[in-house]
């Protein structure tokens, strides 16, 4: 009985959390399409800072991770594929693994770790220090001034980082191939391009977009969920990370399912 009542309570809390997140998402969508005077300038400044932090500053770590992942994927495929006479599939493998699946997911994880946590902690601290209340008292809508520029900034950054991830991963793959197979870059690139369909690029960009919106939506929502105490900030940040990771895994599954079975 204890287990069932405990599970029931947990389920109700999760359901309440989810419905609140949906309501917040609806509010964001509605606010985006409302016309307002002056806001463009203030929002643009926040958006610019977010793109610098999430997109530009994350470039070195994305570059490093993707180079390694690209190289490792080629090493792994070179150990297995020749046994089955499948060296020609290396390009296809790189496209499927990196561009369709790993690229968007790993970029999403890095953005959650770097920017998602920062967004939740920043907004949470603003709530505790009454900065959000101060904005409201001035008639400055925190959703419009804080949340929307961050959502747009994180989404645009994630899509761009995704593209960089693909480029660096292919470069990493090429460097390893060059060492092992003595392949020229033109031939390597030709194989990749031949293996790539328009749908691969569309899926990659769509995942980047969806993950960006989900991460920013969840992380800003959790930041605003802080109520009174600064001890809530790290708790909400942890929740934001867990929920965002779960959300992008689910979204990844749904997109992949739709692609193959839709």
């Amino acid at each position, binding site marked *: 009985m204890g287990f069932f009542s405990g599970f029931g309570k947990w389920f109700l809390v999760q359901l309440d959390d989810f419905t609140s997140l949906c309501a917040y998402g609806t509010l964001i969508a509605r606010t985006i399409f*409302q016309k307002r005077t*002056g806001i463009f*300038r203030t929002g643009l400044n926040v958006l610019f800072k977010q793109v610098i932090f999430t997109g530009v500053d994350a470039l070195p770590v994305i570059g490093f991770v993707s180079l390694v992942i690209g190289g490792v994927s080629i090493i792994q495929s070179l150990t297995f594929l020749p046994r089955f006479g499948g060296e020609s599939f290396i390009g296809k493998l790189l496209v499927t693994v990196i561009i369709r699946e790993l690229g968007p997911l790993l970029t999403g994880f890095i953005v959650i770790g770097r920017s998602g946590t920062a967004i939740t902690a920043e907004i949470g601290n603003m709530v505790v*220090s009454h900065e959000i*209340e*101060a904005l*409201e*008292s*001035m*008639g400055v809508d925190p959703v419009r001034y804080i949340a929307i520029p961050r959502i747009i900034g994180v989404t645009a950054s994630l899509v761009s980082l995704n593209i960089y991830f693909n480029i660096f991963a292919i470069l990493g793959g090429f460097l390893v191939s060059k060492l092992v197979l003595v392949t020229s870059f033109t031939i390597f690139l030709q194989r990749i391009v031949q293996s790539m369909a328009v749908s691969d690029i569309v899926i990659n960009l769509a995942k980047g977009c969806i993950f960006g919106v989900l991460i920013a939506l969840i992380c800003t929502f959790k930041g605003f969920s802080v109520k009174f105490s600064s001890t809530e900030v790290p708790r909400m940040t942890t929740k934001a990370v867990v929920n965002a990771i779960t959300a992008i895994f689910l979204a990844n599954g749904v997109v992949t399912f739709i692609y193959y079975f839709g």
Partner: protein
Amino acid sequence: MDEYVLEMKDVSVSFGGERILDGISMGFPRGRLIAVTGPSGCGKSTLLKIAAGLIPPDSGSVYLEGVDIASLSRRALFARRKECAFVFQDAALLSNLDVYNNLALPLRYHYNHSAKEIEKKVTRALESFGLEEEKRHLPAQLSMGEKKLVSFARGLIIDPKLIFLDEPLSGIDASAREKMVDTIIPLRDDPATTIIMVSHNIELIKSAADYIALVFNKKLFAYGTRDEILKSRDPITQKILSIIIDEEAQIAEEILGVLTGLGSPEGPFGPDEGPGAM
């Protein structure tokens, strides 16, 4: 009483199961300074935030210019706040923006002013509070007095018709107090501006308030003109006022005690206490 710019009807609110305010009904006359006072923890600041629409009441209604603010859409509520200013007890400046940008934010957000116009308005506001040198300072680099002055300047920059002040003189130095009072008094005399001020400072209330609301035990205990309340012969009203005066004196005494300790050979700590004690 005069026409009300803001009215509260049977407002109650609880936090975490504890009742903070119970059945408050009062009107705030236009063009007047209404001081809300009472002992510590009686719910004065909560009352002010409910009046400003920052906290929704559990029951009851708040009417701004005759319109129930609960009936306003989110967008309409934010648009109405354009004409209001709120000075928080802890200043609540945006910590990632410098003084200039804290003041410029409401102008940029609400109006299509050019950068030059914004600069002119912000500079004028900074000059009126003697804060020109702090223009590029972040809030963390300011004293509490300076923070509160910046917060007041930020509120006034949009020419508000309704000003909410939460303990404007608490925790600030003498020079900031003087500037604050010098700004409040002319605003009180402007018939177009209504000020609702929560304060513990009886001297400020005596010199500035047109009306006084006495909050005690979660309820509005007494509400009337300054003379009606301060010269009231009701023993409970007198007792509440003396509690407020005592609390203020106690705070002053504590501050004085610390300052006196700093001047003594042993400092504010005992001989075996404090930093460096072995």
